[in-house]
């Protein structure tokens, strides 16, 4: 099929989370939709040593790739694609000249901390495209490496999301008004409330309304989540018993179940029916990230499947959008007249053609970083790029930088069982302190020290082959047999970690631009990233460390917090070195706002300049709040879909 000649109502760039939600909603209202997806089809590519052949597989084969991976990273089940590359957590290295191993001594604590003067961009050798992508898809300019990744294949990053589906707090929409920080959102909690209901239904969220009625969150009369809350783990209950009734810095430490896009026990809905999405109940594989083996966890392929079933959606895989074409006959605020895209046949093979897809309306839903990159690359007619009158495209790159604390409980809590996270501490998400420091939520991890400490591998190796003092490969004697078994039972059953998702404010110094020197295999520029933390966020880290001490001391936890394994970045704040981790929550790069001068889109995610262009994704979010962003993003996508339907 040569889709380039067919006329569509809507052309969507990106068949990931937002793209699937939009396609489904628009197609259900009988609009003809074309989706251009850069990556491989939904049941997609598996590991194949020969990148000149396309070998596709299904979830079971992704599982095999995961089982065989030495480093079981979020990316490990999914093969790299040089024609639509994605970043990997293994690439996140310190950005020179910052040296992870040499924090300034404490007596230099008062010296100016980050942002340090930006290092002169080091020349990067990208001539060997594949080798250079193997060393990291991002061009990291620092001073702190950006720690989050995404996936480019049908279904997008939903392949390895964790499942956390919290609503934002009403106050999160009013940061400027309430705390004189950053900006307000051009909409309120109330504006999104119905869309939250829709998104929770589509994802299939398991949670308890009473427990979620915190910090002013309200639900519509008689509302129930699609499924009952996922049962808490022994660890969740232990932390609740230890600190649940206490406060830290004025915030309650009450432990509550985390709303999750994982199947639990169906609820009877308002209309009397029982929720049923046809997928299985969670089996507690402790593997939500990087892949749920049984699809008990929602992913966007579910919604894309429904979209395709309407008969109104065509999707072209292996179609990388490279240029948003504007109407040359309208000098002011031209409309979009087409999307230029490149195709390829294999992950390492050449470009097989360049085409133009046309429709009446256009949506960019290509993930926060790729969407901004595409708009900025589309500069043939307007040098600043498409939709960029405000200069904000690509700016305000944000995440929920994470602080990890880990230790050993005095008594067994039996980690490595159940979903990766079932509960959290939500009290510190809002409070008067937000006029000076970042808020955070605390995620309780059920995977022992797997994230910060490479468990169980690193600790068993410490028992069996203790590292010699000189760090060499010289053999050393350790324990074995029954002593090893006892040691595993007594330590691993007590391992746990908590993770703080810390608020980050929009900042002009954090941005992504298309690289002028580094390209992927199709010749498309790679993302060049500048990233740092301001005092507000660093104060959040400081508070997170203090909260960790408070919780651990109260509960007699042996505190093992140190340098997380494979830590890419570090920063020093008031003499203390912190090792932030990426949360995968990439936000802010095409933010919505009140005026065309300070934002990229309006509250319906319509470009201020180009009347038939919408830009939808977590990049739409003006501030990060502390809730994992995707439920809110999906609610926003449904809002945008309504606006698009109304505009026909």
């Amino acid at each position, binding site marked *: 099929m040569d889709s380039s000649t067919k006329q569509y109502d809507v052309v969507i760039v990106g068949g990931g989370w937002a793209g699937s939600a939009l396609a489904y909603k628009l197609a259900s209202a009988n609009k003809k939709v074309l989706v251009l997806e850069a990556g491989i089809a939904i049941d997609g590519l598996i590991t194949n040593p020969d990148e000149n052949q396309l070998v596709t597989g299904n979830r079971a084969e992704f*599982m*095999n790739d*995961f*089982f*065989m*991976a*030495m480093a*079981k990273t979020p990316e490990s089940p999914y093969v790299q694609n040089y024609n639509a590359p994605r970043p990997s957590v*293994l690439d996140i290295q310190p950005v020179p000249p910052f040296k992870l191993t040499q924090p300034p001594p404490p007596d230099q604590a008062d010296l100016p901390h980050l942002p340090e003067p930006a290092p002169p961009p080091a020349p990067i050798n990208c001539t060997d495209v594949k080798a250079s992508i193997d060393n990291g898809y991002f061009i990291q300019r620092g001073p702190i490496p950006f720690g989050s990744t995404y996936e480019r294949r049908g279904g997008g990053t939903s392949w390895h999301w964790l499942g956390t589906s919290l609503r934002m707090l009403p106050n999160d929409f009013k940061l400027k008004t309430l705390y004189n920080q950053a900006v307000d959102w051009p909409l309120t909690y109330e504006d999104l409330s119905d869309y939250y209901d829709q998104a929770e239904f589509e994802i299939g969220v398991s949670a308890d309304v009473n427990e979620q009625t915190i910090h002013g969150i309200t639900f519509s009369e008689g509302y129930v989540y699609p499924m009952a809350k996922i*049962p808490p*783990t*022994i660890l969740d209950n232990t932390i609740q018993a230890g600190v649940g009734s206490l406060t830290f810095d004025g915030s309650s430490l009450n432990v509550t179940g985390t709303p999750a896009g994982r199947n*639990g026990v169906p609820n009877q809905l308002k209309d009397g029916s029982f929720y049923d999405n046809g997928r299985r109940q*969670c*089996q*507690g*594989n*402790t*593997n939500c990230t990087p892949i749920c*083996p049984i699809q008990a966890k929602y992913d966007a392929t579910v919604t894309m499947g429904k979209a395709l079933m309407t008969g109104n959606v065509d999707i072209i895989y292996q179609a990388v959008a490279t240029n948003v074409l504007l109407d040359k006959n309208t000098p002011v605020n031209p409309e979009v007249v087409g999307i230029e895209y490149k195709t390829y046949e294999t992950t390492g093979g050449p470009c097989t053609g360049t085409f133009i897809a046309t429709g009446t309306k256009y949506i960019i839903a290509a993930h926060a970083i790729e969407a901004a990159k595409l708009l900025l690359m589309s500069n043939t007619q307007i040098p600043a790029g498409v939709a960029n009158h405000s200069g904000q495209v690509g700016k305000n790159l944000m995440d929920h930088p994470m602080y990890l604390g880990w230790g050993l409980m005095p008594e*067994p809590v*039996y*980690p*490595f*069982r*159940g*979903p990766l996270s*079932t509960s959290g501490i939500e009290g510190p998400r809002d409070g008067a302190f937000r006029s000076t420091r970042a808020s955070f939520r605390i995620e309780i991890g*059920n995977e022992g020290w*797997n994230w910060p400490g490479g468990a*169980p*591998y*690193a600790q*068993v*190796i*410490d028992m*069996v*082959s203790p*590292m*010699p003092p000189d*760090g*060499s*490969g*010289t*053999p*050393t*004697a*350790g324990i*074995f*047999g*029954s*002593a*090893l*078994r*006892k040691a*595993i*039972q007594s330590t*691993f*059953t007590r391992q746990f970690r908590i993770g703080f998702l810390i608020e980050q404010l929009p900042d002009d110094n954090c941005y992504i631009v298309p690289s002028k020197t580094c390209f992927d295999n199709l010749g498309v520029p790679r993302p060049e990233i500048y990233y740092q933390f301001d005092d507000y966020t660093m104060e959040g880290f400081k508070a997170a460390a203090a909260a960790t001490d408070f919780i651990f001391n109260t509960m007699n936890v042996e505190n093992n917090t140190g340098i997380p394994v*494979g830590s890419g970045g570090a920063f020093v704040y008031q003499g203390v070195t912190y090792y932030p981790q990426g949360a995968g929550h990439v936000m802010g790069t095409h933010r919505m706002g009140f005026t065309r001068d300070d934002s990229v889109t309006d509250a319906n995610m319509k470009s201020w300049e180009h009347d038939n262009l919408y830009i939808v994704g977590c990049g739409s979010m003006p501030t990060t709040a502390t809730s994992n962003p995707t439920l809110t993003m999906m609610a926003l996508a449904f809002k945008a879909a309504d606006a698009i339907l109304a505009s026909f």
Partner: protein
Amino acid sequence: MMTLDEFVALSSALTGYPASTLLPARDTQKVAAALYAELSLSTNNIPAAQLDQLTQVWNSISGTPPPQLEAAVNTNIIQNLAITRLAQNIIYLWYFGIWYDLTKNPNSFLPLKNIDHVVSPLAYTNGLVWGEMGAHPMGFSVGEFGYWANVPTLPVIS
């Protein structure tokens, strides 16, 4: 060269698990055979003399009565730096399903591209470490919805 029987008996002493668990009578998973094959994989670069020495030492103590066997293994194999590293790799095969480069400490990550590898998906899912702590391999649960709310039974150590 070490035989499969020798490998299983030595593995039992090193892991603390009965040989009948490592190589069950009805062997559906064929894990022992897959792990044993690692010893003759040329890319693993096992010095032949080291493997011979480990085999000989094991055969010289394998008849030790069970109550004293661990002490004998400790003295003759674990504390013997000429062969301990290879013995440790046999432990990793069983606990993780992983073969590590013998020339470095498995906890040193560099160089990133090396010969460390997971033997097979089945070797991973049968790794002993998970069951030892009352859990399951990450990504391979046979539990029912909600099992995680209950205290697991840890295996008995004999």
